[in-house]
Protein backbone atom coordinates (compact mmCIF):
# COMPACT_ATOMS: atom_id res chain seq x y z
CA UNK A 1 0.00 0.00 0.00
CA UNK A 2 1.43 3.38 -0.94
CA UNK A 3 1.65 6.11 1.65
CA UNK A 4 -0.53 9.12 0.80
CA UNK A 5 0.88 12.65 0.75
CA UNK A 6 1.01 14.16 4.27
CA UNK A 7 -1.27 17.08 3.35
CA UNK A 8 -3.77 14.65 1.81
CA UNK A 9 -3.83 12.56 4.98
CA UNK A 10 -4.15 15.69 7.18
CA UNK A 11 -7.14 16.92 5.17
CA UNK A 12 -8.59 13.41 5.05
CA UNK A 13 -8.32 12.85 8.78
CA UNK A 14 -9.78 16.32 9.51
CA UNK A 15 -12.76 15.83 7.22
CA UNK A 16 -13.49 12.29 8.41
CA UNK A 17 -13.09 13.15 12.12
CA UNK A 18 -15.26 16.27 11.92
CA UNK A 19 -18.02 14.76 9.81
CA UNK A 20 -17.99 11.57 11.87
CA UNK A 21 -18.51 13.53 15.08
CA UNK A 22 -21.29 15.59 13.50
CA UNK A 23 -22.94 12.37 12.33
CA UNK A 24 -22.46 11.02 15.83
CA UNK A 25 -24.82 13.68 17.20
CA UNK A 26 -27.58 12.22 15.05
CA UNK A 27 -26.61 8.64 15.98
CA UNK A 28 -26.69 9.52 19.66
CA UNK A 29 -30.12 11.15 19.49
CA UNK A 30 -31.59 8.26 17.50
CA UNK A 31 -30.07 5.56 19.69
CA UNK A 32 -31.08 7.32 22.91
CA UNK A 33 -34.60 7.59 21.55
CA UNK A 34 -34.60 3.89 20.64
CA UNK A 35 -33.49 2.89 24.14
CA UNK A 36 -35.94 5.28 25.77
CA UNK A 37 -38.84 4.05 23.63
CA UNK A 38 -39.47 7.18 21.53
CA UNK A 39 -38.70 8.37 17.97
CA UNK A 40 -35.97 11.00 18.18
CA UNK A 41 -35.28 13.34 15.23
CA UNK A 42 -36.96 11.78 12.16
CA UNK A 43 -38.40 14.71 10.19
CA UNK A 44 -35.49 16.40 8.37
CA UNK A 45 -34.37 14.24 5.45
CA UNK A 46 -34.39 10.41 5.37
CA UNK A 47 -34.45 9.03 8.94
CA UNK A 48 -33.81 12.59 10.19
CA UNK A 49 -30.26 12.42 8.84
CA UNK A 50 -30.22 16.08 7.87
CA UNK A 51 -31.17 17.20 11.39
CA UNK A 52 -27.50 17.91 12.15
CA UNK A 53 -27.28 20.14 9.08
CA UNK A 54 -30.37 22.06 10.15
CA UNK A 55 -28.95 22.47 13.66
CA UNK A 56 -25.67 23.67 12.19
CA UNK A 57 -27.38 26.36 10.07
CA UNK A 58 -29.27 27.46 13.15
CA UNK A 59 -26.18 27.62 15.36
CA UNK A 60 -24.20 29.61 12.76
CA UNK A 61 -26.91 32.24 12.42
CA UNK A 62 -27.40 32.69 16.16
CA UNK A 63 -26.16 35.78 17.94
CA UNK A 64 -22.65 35.19 19.25
CA UNK A 65 -22.90 36.96 22.58
CA UNK A 66 -20.09 37.65 25.04
CA UNK A 67 -21.36 38.62 28.48
CA UNK A 68 -20.08 42.03 29.71
CA UNK A 69 -18.86 40.49 33.00
CA UNK A 70 -16.76 37.86 31.19
CA UNK A 71 -13.00 37.99 30.74
CA UNK A 72 -13.11 38.54 26.98
CA UNK A 73 -9.80 37.12 25.63
CA UNK A 74 -9.89 33.98 27.76
CA UNK A 75 -13.61 33.51 27.03
CA UNK A 76 -12.86 33.49 23.29
CA UNK A 77 -9.75 31.27 23.47
CA UNK A 78 -11.31 28.56 25.70
CA UNK A 79 -13.54 26.81 23.11
CA UNK A 80 -10.70 26.86 20.57
CA UNK A 81 -8.38 24.99 22.93
CA UNK A 82 -10.57 21.89 23.07
CA UNK A 83 -10.89 21.70 19.28
CA UNK A 84 -7.15 22.18 18.74
CA UNK A 85 -6.00 19.64 21.36
CA UNK A 86 -8.45 16.93 20.27
CA UNK A 87 -7.75 17.40 16.56
CA UNK A 88 -3.98 17.38 17.22
CA UNK A 89 -4.37 13.98 18.89
CA UNK A 90 -5.91 12.60 15.71
CA UNK A 91 -2.58 13.33 14.00
CA UNK A 92 -0.84 10.38 15.68
CA UNK A 93 -3.74 7.95 15.23
CA UNK A 94 -2.87 5.06 12.89
CA UNK A 95 -6.11 4.39 10.99
CA UNK A 96 -4.88 1.76 8.53
CA UNK A 97 -1.43 0.60 7.31
CA UNK A 98 0.27 3.73 5.97
CA UNK A 99 -2.65 6.06 6.78
CA UNK A 100 -1.37 8.19 9.64
CA UNK A 101 -0.56 11.90 9.60
CA UNK A 102 2.54 11.75 11.79
CA UNK A 103 4.07 8.43 12.81
CA UNK A 104 5.65 9.90 15.95
CA UNK A 105 7.84 7.56 17.99
CA UNK A 106 6.28 8.98 21.17
CA UNK A 107 2.75 8.93 19.74
CA UNK A 108 1.14 7.56 22.90
CA UNK A 109 2.76 10.26 25.06
CA UNK A 110 1.67 12.89 22.55
CA UNK A 111 -1.92 11.72 22.93
CA UNK A 112 -1.66 11.84 26.73
CA UNK A 113 -0.10 15.32 26.60
CA UNK A 114 -2.81 16.67 24.32
CA UNK A 115 -5.58 15.19 26.46
CA UNK A 116 -4.03 16.78 29.55
CA UNK A 117 -3.95 20.17 27.80
CA UNK A 118 -7.61 19.77 26.86
CA UNK A 119 -8.55 20.35 30.51
CA UNK A 120 -7.67 24.03 30.15
CA UNK A 121 -10.52 24.56 27.74
CA UNK A 122 -13.13 23.60 30.32
CA UNK A 123 -11.37 25.19 33.29
CA UNK A 124 -10.75 28.51 31.54
CA UNK A 125 -14.27 28.58 30.10
CA UNK A 126 -15.64 28.15 33.62
CA UNK A 127 -13.41 30.89 35.00
CA UNK A 128 -13.81 33.40 32.17
CA UNK A 129 -17.61 33.23 32.19
CA UNK A 130 -17.72 35.16 35.45
CA UNK A 131 -20.67 33.08 36.64
CA UNK A 132 -20.66 31.07 39.85
CA UNK A 133 -22.18 27.95 38.29
CA UNK A 134 -19.64 28.02 35.48
CA UNK A 135 -16.84 28.49 38.00
CA UNK A 136 -18.05 25.44 39.95
CA UNK A 137 -18.18 23.45 36.70
CA UNK A 138 -14.64 24.54 35.88
CA UNK A 139 -13.37 23.60 39.35
CA UNK A 140 -14.99 20.17 39.09
CA UNK A 141 -13.48 19.65 35.64
CA UNK A 142 -10.00 20.51 36.90
CA UNK A 143 -10.22 18.12 39.86
CA UNK A 144 -11.86 15.32 37.88
CA UNK A 145 -9.59 15.41 34.86
CA UNK A 146 -6.34 15.61 36.84
CA UNK A 147 -7.38 12.64 38.98
CA UNK A 148 -8.46 10.49 36.07
CA UNK A 149 -5.50 11.40 33.89
CA UNK A 150 -3.08 9.86 36.38
CA UNK A 151 -4.39 6.33 36.11
CA UNK A 152 -5.30 6.77 32.46
CA UNK A 153 -1.57 7.06 31.77
CA UNK A 154 -0.71 4.28 34.22
CA UNK A 155 -3.27 1.87 32.74
CA UNK A 156 -1.60 2.26 29.34
CA UNK A 157 1.86 1.44 30.62
CA UNK A 158 1.00 -2.28 30.61
CA UNK A 159 0.45 -2.05 26.85
CA UNK A 160 3.72 -0.14 26.49
CA UNK A 161 5.56 -2.84 28.47
CA UNK A 162 4.17 -5.61 26.26
CA UNK A 163 4.80 -3.79 22.98
CA UNK A 164 8.07 -2.23 24.14
CA UNK A 165 7.36 1.09 22.42
CA UNK A 166 5.36 4.34 22.58
CA UNK A 167 4.85 4.23 18.81
CA UNK A 168 1.15 3.63 18.08
CA UNK A 169 1.75 1.99 14.70
CA UNK A 170 4.23 -0.43 16.29
CA UNK A 171 1.72 -1.16 19.06
CA UNK A 172 -0.89 -2.12 16.44
CA UNK A 173 1.67 -4.27 14.60
CA UNK A 174 2.58 -6.00 17.87
CA UNK A 175 -1.06 -7.12 18.30
CA UNK A 176 -1.08 -9.17 15.11
CA UNK A 177 -1.18 -12.44 17.05
CA UNK A 178 -3.14 -11.54 20.17
CA UNK A 179 -5.13 -8.39 20.92
CA UNK A 180 -4.01 -6.72 24.14
CA UNK A 181 -7.55 -6.76 25.50
CA UNK A 182 -6.87 -10.35 26.65
CA UNK A 183 -3.50 -10.07 28.48
CA UNK A 184 -4.31 -6.49 29.57
CA UNK A 185 -7.99 -6.88 30.47
CA UNK A 186 -7.65 -4.87 33.69
CA UNK A 187 -5.78 -2.13 31.84
CA UNK A 188 -8.52 -2.11 29.20
CA UNK A 189 -11.29 -1.65 31.77
CA UNK A 190 -9.34 1.07 33.60
CA UNK A 191 -8.62 2.93 30.37
CA UNK A 192 -12.25 2.67 29.30
CA UNK A 193 -13.45 4.23 32.57
CA UNK A 194 -10.75 6.90 32.48
CA UNK A 195 -11.70 7.60 28.87
CA UNK A 196 -15.35 8.18 29.80
CA UNK A 197 -14.20 10.56 32.54
CA UNK A 198 -11.79 12.40 30.22
CA UNK A 199 -14.52 12.83 27.62
CA UNK A 200 -16.80 14.13 30.42
CA UNK A 201 -19.64 11.79 29.51
CA UNK A 202 -22.31 10.35 31.74
CA UNK A 203 -21.91 8.98 34.41
CA UNK A 204 -18.93 11.35 34.80
CA UNK A 205 -20.34 14.57 33.33
CA UNK A 206 -20.09 16.46 36.62
CA UNK A 207 -18.60 19.63 35.05
CA UNK A 208 -21.83 20.32 33.19
CA UNK A 209 -24.42 18.53 35.39
CA UNK A 210 -27.55 20.27 34.04
CA UNK A 211 -29.60 19.48 37.12
CA UNK A 212 -27.36 21.29 39.61
CA UNK A 213 -25.07 23.62 37.66
CA UNK A 214 -27.34 24.81 34.80
CA UNK A 215 -24.94 23.32 32.19
CA UNK A 216 -21.81 24.25 34.17
CA UNK A 217 -18.86 25.61 32.28
CA UNK A 218 -20.73 26.45 29.08
CA UNK A 219 -23.75 28.23 30.60
CA UNK A 220 -22.66 31.60 29.19
CA UNK A 221 -21.68 30.36 25.74
CA UNK A 222 -23.88 30.77 22.70
CA UNK A 223 -23.68 30.36 18.93
CA UNK A 224 -20.70 28.63 17.42
CA UNK A 225 -18.57 28.99 20.59
CA UNK A 226 -21.03 26.64 22.28
CA UNK A 227 -20.99 24.57 19.10
CA UNK A 228 -17.26 24.11 19.47
CA UNK A 229 -17.65 22.66 22.97
CA UNK A 230 -20.41 20.44 21.64
CA UNK A 231 -18.47 19.13 18.65
CA UNK A 232 -15.33 18.97 20.82
CA UNK A 233 -17.13 16.58 23.16
CA UNK A 234 -18.10 14.27 20.29
CA UNK A 235 -14.61 14.52 18.81
CA UNK A 236 -13.31 13.50 22.23
CA UNK A 237 -15.55 10.43 22.28
CA UNK A 238 -14.42 9.49 18.78
CA UNK A 239 -10.79 9.92 19.81
CA UNK A 240 -11.13 7.79 22.95
CA UNK A 241 -12.97 5.05 21.00
CA UNK A 242 -10.25 5.06 18.35
CA UNK A 243 -7.55 4.92 21.01
CA UNK A 244 -9.23 1.91 22.66
CA UNK A 245 -9.40 0.20 19.26
CA UNK A 246 -5.74 0.95 18.54
CA UNK A 247 -4.32 0.09 21.96
CA UNK A 248 -6.40 -2.89 23.04
CA UNK A 249 -8.33 -4.27 20.07
CA UNK A 250 -5.56 -4.56 17.53
CA UNK A 251 -6.40 -1.43 15.50
CA UNK A 252 -6.85 -2.45 11.88
CA UNK A 253 -6.03 -6.15 12.47
CA UNK A 254 -8.77 -8.64 11.62
CA UNK A 255 -9.61 -11.40 9.17
CA UNK A 256 -11.28 -11.13 5.70
CA UNK A 257 -12.36 -7.47 5.69
CA UNK A 258 -9.99 -4.64 4.62
CA UNK A 259 -8.05 -2.96 7.50
CA UNK A 260 -9.90 0.37 7.33
CA UNK A 261 -13.28 -1.37 7.66
CA UNK A 262 -12.11 -3.32 10.70
CA UNK A 263 -10.89 -0.14 12.34
CA UNK A 264 -14.17 1.68 11.70
CA UNK A 265 -16.24 -1.27 13.00
CA UNK A 266 -14.28 -1.32 16.28
CA UNK A 267 -14.51 2.45 16.71
CA UNK A 268 -18.24 2.44 15.98
CA UNK A 269 -18.86 -0.35 18.51
CA UNK A 270 -17.25 1.76 21.25
CA UNK A 271 -19.13 4.89 20.15
CA UNK A 272 -22.39 2.97 20.63
CA UNK A 273 -21.15 1.75 24.00
CA UNK A 274 -20.55 5.36 25.09
CA UNK A 275 -24.11 6.25 24.08
CA UNK A 276 -25.51 3.19 25.85
CA UNK A 277 -23.71 4.33 29.02
CA UNK A 278 -25.47 7.67 28.76
CA UNK A 279 -28.82 6.00 28.24
CA UNK A 280 -28.52 3.65 31.18
CA UNK A 281 -26.47 5.14 34.02
CA UNK A 282 -27.30 7.96 36.45
CA UNK A 283 -24.81 10.72 37.22
CA UNK A 284 -22.42 10.08 40.12
CA UNK A 285 -21.96 12.38 43.09
CA UNK A 286 -18.74 14.38 43.01
CA UNK A 287 -17.16 12.90 46.14
CA UNK A 288 -18.00 9.39 44.86
CA UNK A 289 -16.25 10.24 41.61
CA UNK A 290 -13.09 11.44 43.33
CA UNK A 291 -12.86 8.57 45.81
CA UNK A 292 -13.51 6.03 43.03
CA UNK A 293 -10.61 7.52 41.09
CA UNK A 294 -8.06 7.71 43.87
CA UNK A 295 -9.04 4.79 46.12
CA UNK A 296 -10.04 2.12 43.59
CA UNK A 297 -8.80 2.94 40.09
CA UNK A 298 -5.37 4.28 40.98
CA UNK A 299 -4.27 1.29 43.14
CA UNK A 300 -5.68 -1.12 40.53
CA UNK A 301 -3.65 0.59 37.80
CA UNK A 302 -0.51 0.30 39.93
CA UNK A 303 -1.17 -3.41 40.59
CA UNK A 304 -1.73 -3.97 36.88
CA UNK A 305 1.56 -2.27 36.05
CA UNK A 306 3.43 -4.24 38.71
CA UNK A 307 2.05 -7.64 37.65
CA UNK A 308 2.60 -6.95 33.94
CA UNK A 309 6.14 -5.82 34.63
CA UNK A 310 6.87 -8.94 36.70
CA UNK A 311 5.49 -11.25 33.99
CA UNK A 312 7.40 -9.48 31.21
CA UNK A 313 10.61 -9.77 33.28
CA UNK A 314 10.00 -13.43 34.15
CA UNK A 315 9.37 -14.36 30.50
CA UNK A 316 12.78 -13.01 29.42
Amino acid at each position, binding site marked *: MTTPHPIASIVGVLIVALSLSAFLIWVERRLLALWQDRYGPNRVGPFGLLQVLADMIKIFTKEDWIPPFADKPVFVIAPAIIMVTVLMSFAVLPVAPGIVVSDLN*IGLLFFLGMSSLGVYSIVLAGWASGNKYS*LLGGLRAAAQMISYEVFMGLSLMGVVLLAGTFDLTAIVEAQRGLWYVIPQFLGFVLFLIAGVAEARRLPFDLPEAEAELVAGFHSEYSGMKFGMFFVGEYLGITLISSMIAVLFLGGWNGPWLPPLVWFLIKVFAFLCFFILLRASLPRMRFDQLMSLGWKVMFPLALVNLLVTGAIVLAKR
Partner: protein
Amino acid sequence: MTNLTEIAFFAAGAVAVIATVLAITRPVAVHALLYLIVSLLAVAVVFYTMGAPLVAALEVIIYAGAIVVLFVFVVMMLNLGVRTQETERKWLAGRAWIGPVILSALLLAEVIYLIVRAPVSAAMNSISTPKQIGLALFGPYLLGVELASMLLLGALVGACHLGRTSKSGREARQ
Protein backbone atom coordinates in the same frame (compact mmCIF):
# COMPACT_ATOMS: atom_id res chain seq x y z
CA MET B 1 20.82 18.63 12.46
CA THR B 2 19.29 20.69 9.73
CA ASN B 3 19.00 24.43 9.55
CA LEU B 4 15.25 24.24 9.96
CA THR B 5 15.53 22.51 13.33
CA GLU B 6 17.93 25.22 14.45
CA ILE B 7 15.45 27.92 13.45
CA ALA B 8 12.69 26.05 15.34
CA PHE B 9 15.00 25.82 18.35
CA PHE B 10 15.74 29.55 18.48
CA ALA B 11 12.16 30.54 17.69
CA ALA B 12 10.83 28.34 20.51
CA GLY B 13 13.50 29.76 22.81
CA ALA B 14 12.44 33.32 21.97
CA VAL B 15 8.78 32.44 22.56
CA ALA B 16 9.71 30.92 25.93
CA VAL B 17 11.58 34.07 27.02
CA ILE B 18 8.86 36.50 25.89
CA ALA B 19 6.06 34.39 27.40
CA THR B 20 7.91 34.15 30.70
CA VAL B 21 8.41 37.95 30.82
CA LEU B 22 4.68 38.39 30.14
CA ALA B 23 3.86 35.78 32.80
CA ILE B 24 5.68 37.94 35.34
CA THR B 25 4.22 41.28 34.29
CA ARG B 26 0.51 40.45 33.79
CA PRO B 27 -1.62 41.86 36.63
CA VAL B 28 -4.46 39.29 36.15
CA ALA B 29 -3.30 36.01 37.72
CA VAL B 30 -5.05 33.69 35.24
CA HIS B 31 -3.58 35.57 32.26
CA ALA B 32 -0.13 35.24 33.82
CA LEU B 33 -0.69 31.49 34.19
CA LEU B 34 -1.74 31.23 30.54
CA TYR B 35 1.56 32.81 29.52
CA LEU B 36 3.34 30.39 31.83
CA ILE B 37 1.69 27.50 29.96
CA VAL B 38 2.85 28.95 26.62
CA SER B 39 6.34 29.26 28.05
CA LEU B 40 6.34 25.61 29.21
CA LEU B 41 5.10 24.43 25.80
CA ALA B 42 7.87 26.43 24.13
CA VAL B 43 10.43 24.79 26.42
CA ALA B 44 8.99 21.41 25.38
CA VAL B 45 9.61 22.33 21.73
CA VAL B 46 13.17 23.34 22.67
CA PHE B 47 13.71 19.90 24.24
CA TYR B 48 12.25 18.22 21.15
CA THR B 49 14.52 20.08 18.75
CA MET B 50 17.48 19.17 20.94
CA GLY B 51 16.71 15.48 20.41
CA ALA B 52 14.93 14.65 23.67
CA PRO B 53 11.36 13.72 22.64
CA LEU B 54 10.61 11.88 25.87
CA VAL B 55 11.56 14.86 28.02
CA ALA B 56 9.49 17.10 25.75
CA ALA B 57 6.43 14.86 26.16
CA LEU B 58 6.89 14.68 29.93
CA GLU B 59 7.24 18.47 30.08
CA VAL B 60 3.84 18.82 28.39
CA ILE B 61 2.10 16.07 30.39
CA ILE B 62 3.48 16.87 33.84
CA TYR B 63 4.25 20.60 33.89
CA ALA B 64 1.80 22.11 31.42
CA GLY B 65 -0.88 19.43 31.85
CA ALA B 66 -0.90 18.75 35.58
CA ILE B 67 1.06 21.20 37.73
CA VAL B 68 -0.17 24.42 36.12
CA VAL B 69 -3.74 23.05 36.13
CA LEU B 70 -3.38 22.88 39.92
CA PHE B 71 -2.13 26.50 39.95
CA VAL B 72 -5.15 27.56 37.89
CA PHE B 73 -7.38 25.55 40.23
CA VAL B 74 -6.07 27.40 43.30
CA VAL B 75 -6.27 30.82 41.61
CA MET B 76 -9.89 30.11 40.65
CA MET B 77 -10.70 29.10 44.24
CA LEU B 78 -9.18 32.33 45.60
CA ASN B 79 -11.46 34.34 43.28
CA LEU B 80 -9.07 37.32 43.04
CA GLY B 81 -10.87 40.52 42.17
CA VAL B 82 -10.00 43.98 40.87
CA ARG B 83 -8.33 44.96 44.15
CA THR B 84 -5.59 42.34 43.87
CA GLN B 85 -4.95 43.53 40.31
CA GLU B 86 -4.40 47.05 41.67
CA THR B 87 -1.95 45.76 44.29
CA GLU B 88 -0.16 43.75 41.62
CA ARG B 89 0.18 46.86 39.44
CA LYS B 90 1.61 48.81 42.38
CA TRP B 91 4.16 46.07 43.08
CA LEU B 92 5.28 45.92 39.48
CA ALA B 93 5.73 49.68 39.09
CA GLY B 94 8.98 51.61 39.36
CA ARG B 95 11.95 50.71 41.49
CA ALA B 96 11.03 47.09 42.23
CA TRP B 97 12.41 46.31 38.77
CA ILE B 98 16.02 47.44 39.33
CA GLY B 99 17.40 44.42 41.21
CA PRO B 100 15.84 41.62 39.09
CA VAL B 101 16.67 43.43 35.84
CA ILE B 102 20.39 43.70 36.72
CA LEU B 103 20.58 40.02 37.69
CA SER B 104 18.69 38.79 34.60
CA ALA B 105 20.70 41.08 32.31
CA LEU B 106 23.89 39.45 33.61
CA LEU B 107 22.49 35.98 32.88
CA LEU B 108 21.26 37.05 29.45
CA ALA B 109 24.71 38.41 28.57
CA GLU B 110 26.26 35.09 29.61
CA VAL B 111 23.78 33.08 27.54
CA ILE B 112 24.36 35.25 24.47
CA TYR B 113 28.13 34.93 24.90
CA LEU B 114 27.87 31.11 25.14
CA ILE B 115 25.58 30.87 22.09
CA VAL B 116 27.87 33.04 20.00
CA ARG B 117 30.96 31.08 21.03
CA ALA B 118 29.59 27.55 20.49
CA PRO B 119 26.49 27.67 18.26
CA VAL B 120 25.56 23.96 18.32
CA SER B 121 25.95 21.98 21.50
CA ALA B 122 26.92 18.30 21.35
CA ALA B 123 23.55 17.21 22.74
CA MET B 124 21.68 18.61 19.73
CA ASN B 125 23.20 15.99 17.44
CA SER B 126 22.10 12.90 19.33
CA ILE B 127 18.57 11.69 20.00
CA SER B 128 18.03 10.22 23.44
CA THR B 129 15.47 7.41 23.46
CA PRO B 130 13.15 6.61 26.39
CA LYS B 131 15.27 3.48 27.00
CA GLN B 132 18.48 5.48 27.38
CA ILE B 133 16.80 7.88 29.79
CA GLY B 134 15.41 4.98 31.82
CA LEU B 135 18.80 3.27 31.97
CA ALA B 136 20.47 6.53 33.05
CA LEU B 137 17.83 7.23 35.71
CA PHE B 138 17.97 3.77 37.27
CA GLY B 139 21.70 3.32 36.71
CA PRO B 140 24.13 6.11 37.59
CA TYR B 141 21.40 8.45 38.94
CA LEU B 142 19.58 5.88 41.10
CA LEU B 143 20.40 7.75 44.32
CA GLY B 144 18.84 10.94 42.98
CA VAL B 145 15.67 9.12 41.92
CA GLU B 146 15.36 7.47 45.33
CA LEU B 147 15.92 10.78 47.15
CA ALA B 148 13.27 12.47 45.00
CA SER B 149 10.82 9.64 45.71
CA MET B 150 11.49 9.96 49.45
CA LEU B 151 10.77 13.69 49.21
CA LEU B 152 7.51 13.01 47.39
CA LEU B 153 6.57 10.37 49.96
CA GLY B 154 7.13 12.94 52.70
CA ALA B 155 4.88 15.40 50.90
CA LEU B 156 2.24 12.69 50.45
CA VAL B 157 2.27 11.77 54.15
CA GLY B 158 2.05 15.47 55.04
CA ALA B 159 -0.91 16.02 52.72
CA CYS B 160 -2.66 12.93 54.16
CA HIS B 161 -2.12 14.26 57.67
CA LEU B 162 -3.53 17.71 56.84
CA GLY B 163 -6.54 16.20 55.03
CA ARG B 164 -7.24 13.88 57.95
CA THR B 165 -7.30 16.60 60.63
CA SER B 166 -9.78 18.68 58.64
CA LYS B 167 -12.06 15.62 58.29
CA SER B 168 -12.03 14.83 62.03
CA GLY B 169 -12.64 18.54 62.69
CA ARG B 170 -15.77 18.38 60.55
CA GLU B 171 -16.97 15.34 62.46
CA ALA B 172 -16.33 17.10 65.77
CA ARG B 173 -18.46 20.07 64.71
CA GLN B 174 -21.44 17.90 63.79
